[in-house]
């Protein structure tokens, strides 16, 4: 507080003789402060809650009150996904790289720091995971799905999902999402979009490379098995750097 020191060290005749002025000023300040408090209280009562929950209400019709998802099978759960992954998606929607007009429209004129706050908010939510709905896929399809998810297909250069998304498939901070607790329609729609190049990510676009090697039957099988597989109780994404990725990925900087 250099100003404070300066005042104390230089007794100023005007200031010394200014007791009355100072008292009046103090009184005026006190009154002004009280008045300001009253106005602030009145304004708070008449204002929306100053919370992220109130600010992201626009997200809730499609993603649920706490990002738990809704009955619409194409709208994903957001809660508990790694904040870096959610932020990358918000940026991609804002910039039009990920194309879904209702999302592009909502985010187009928001700032990047605000999108980061939104991502942090949903990453911090932990509503219960939905119960797994019994799959109507055949045992054969589910087995094929399990095989691709857990072992991949080395002959076709398809890595196991778990080699990036984690041994428990719960993802890794900051950028790799978990794969459990999602519905089959959403998973197959996204894998399809990666395959056809309508969903892309920063280069090297590892998901695009992997999905391009999948057939339509692979996609159906993977989606069916993932959706049918219950998430572990400890389903938080693994901390950054827990395991080494098999190849470089633009979404998960080393």
């Amino acid at each position, binding site marked *: 507080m250099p100003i*404070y020191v300066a*005042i104390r060290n230089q007794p100023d005749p005007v200031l010394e003789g200014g007791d009355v002025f*100072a008292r009046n000023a103090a009184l005026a300040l006190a009154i002004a402060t009280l008045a300001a408090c009253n106005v602030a209280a009145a304004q708070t009562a008449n204002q929306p809650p100053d919370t992220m929950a109130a600010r992201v*209400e*626009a997200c809730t*019709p499609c993603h649920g009150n706490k990002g738990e998802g809704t009955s619409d099978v194409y709208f994903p759960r957001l809660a508990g996904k790694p904040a870096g992954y959610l932020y990358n998606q918000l940026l991609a929607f804002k910039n039009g*790289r990920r194309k879904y007009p*209702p999302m592009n429209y*909502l985010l187009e*004129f928001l700032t990047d720091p605000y999108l980061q706050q939104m991502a942090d908010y949903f990453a911090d939510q932990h509503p219960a995971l939905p119960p797994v709905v019994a799959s109507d896929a055949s045992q054969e399809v589910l087995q094929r799905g399990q095989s691709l998810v857990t072992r991949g297909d080395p002959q076709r250069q398809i890595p196991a999902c778990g080699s990036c998304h984690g041994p428990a498939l719960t993802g890794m901070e900051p950028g790799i999402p978990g794969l459990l607790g999602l519905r089959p329609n959403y998973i197959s729609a996204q894998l399809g979009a990666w395959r056809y190049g309508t969903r892309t990510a920063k280069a090297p676009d590892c998901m695009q490379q992997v999905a391009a090697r999948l057939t339509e039957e692979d996609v159906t099988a993977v989606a069916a098995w993932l959706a049918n597989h219950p998430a572990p109780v400890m389903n938080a994404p693994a901390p950054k750097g827990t395991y080494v990725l098999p190849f470089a990925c633009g979404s998960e900087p080393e």
Partner: protein
Amino acid sequence: MPSRSPILVLLLWSLFAGSAAEAQQKAGPTSDNIVARGEYLARAGDCIACHTAPEGRTFAGGRAMPTPFGTLYSSNITPDRETGIGKWTAEDFYKAMHTGRFPDGGLMYPAMPFASYTKVTRADSEAIFAYLKSIPPVNQRNREHDLRFPYSNRQLILGWRTLYFNEGEFKPDPTKSAEWNRGAYLVEGLGHCGMCHSPINALGGTAQSDAFKGGLIPMQNWYAPSLTSNREAGLGDWSIQDISDLLQTGVSQRGVVYGPMAEVVHNSLQYLSDEDTRAMAVYLKGISEPSPPPPASSVLPTTESSLLISLGKTVYDKNCASCHGAQGEGKPPHWPPLANNQSIEMQSAVNPIRMVLNGGYPPGTKGNPMPYGMPPFAGLLSDNEVAAVVSYIRTAWGNRGTPVSARDANELRSAPLN
């Protein structure tokens, strides 16, 4: 003495804070630095909105601009000598702004708002040019326009220019204040507000007598309300503070901007100085005209209207009242009031219907960095319920709008979102 010092510190601190804020404002438009001034003016002209593609390099162009005549691609205005404006002179740039012609005399399509920029002074044009010359050059070739026959023939622009283009710098009105004239200069010139807020006819032009009378923005299906009629976005009964807040932060006690206007506030208006914002507010308030009588009542039969409105109240109380209030009072500025809100009552119901269907966020701005969003109801409400709730908010609480039909709501479900 020690008890008194904190008060002095406080007083001194507020003096300091005051002068720092003043200095910051002065550094804006009045600065001697021509490049800084040009940057400020380029913001006022919102050049970036068209001349930068999503995820693209700043001012390198290439943004697709759909028009009723085909798709135009904006041009590279970085100082790259091969693909940008690196070989242009200040005179070339002024000629482009002022006359809508390339240095070789070729005609620009009027998507470039030269009909507004023609009003920009030579000094301001030179400052913008100095700024553009100072940014990093980007080597990126312009993409060919993709226009349908016969619009691909540039000679047609000559006809358009004869009908709708009046070349000439802004002429101050000596009967008005300096502030009003500054506002007029910004609104009519760099701000190019008339590009959206004037009705556009089938030839893509605006008759001068229709300036700022409002119109549906082609291809976007948002209604840009009249800036002169108080039945629309005329600001005759708004306070200067509320108008300034809306322009600078995107939210105000009277209403909030969404859609294409959110773009303008986000990219351009939030950067204008308090003085320039206030000047625009003074001018905009000044051009509002006495309101014409309300339009004839709804085309819907009375029985259908009253059924809609009673269903609308049910929908409203369930879905909307928690934010917008039982009496449409809202919690401004973040949850806008619907009662006595001109944008709800306008003859065109396009904007309120779109807001119910798609929701929206006001723009993120320095003054409002964490805006509150309106949820989209397209997936939750049927056409009939959308029509009902929009009819309700247009007619409740003394609002003087008219009911809308389920068909009106349905048609906007397919409206483009970006």
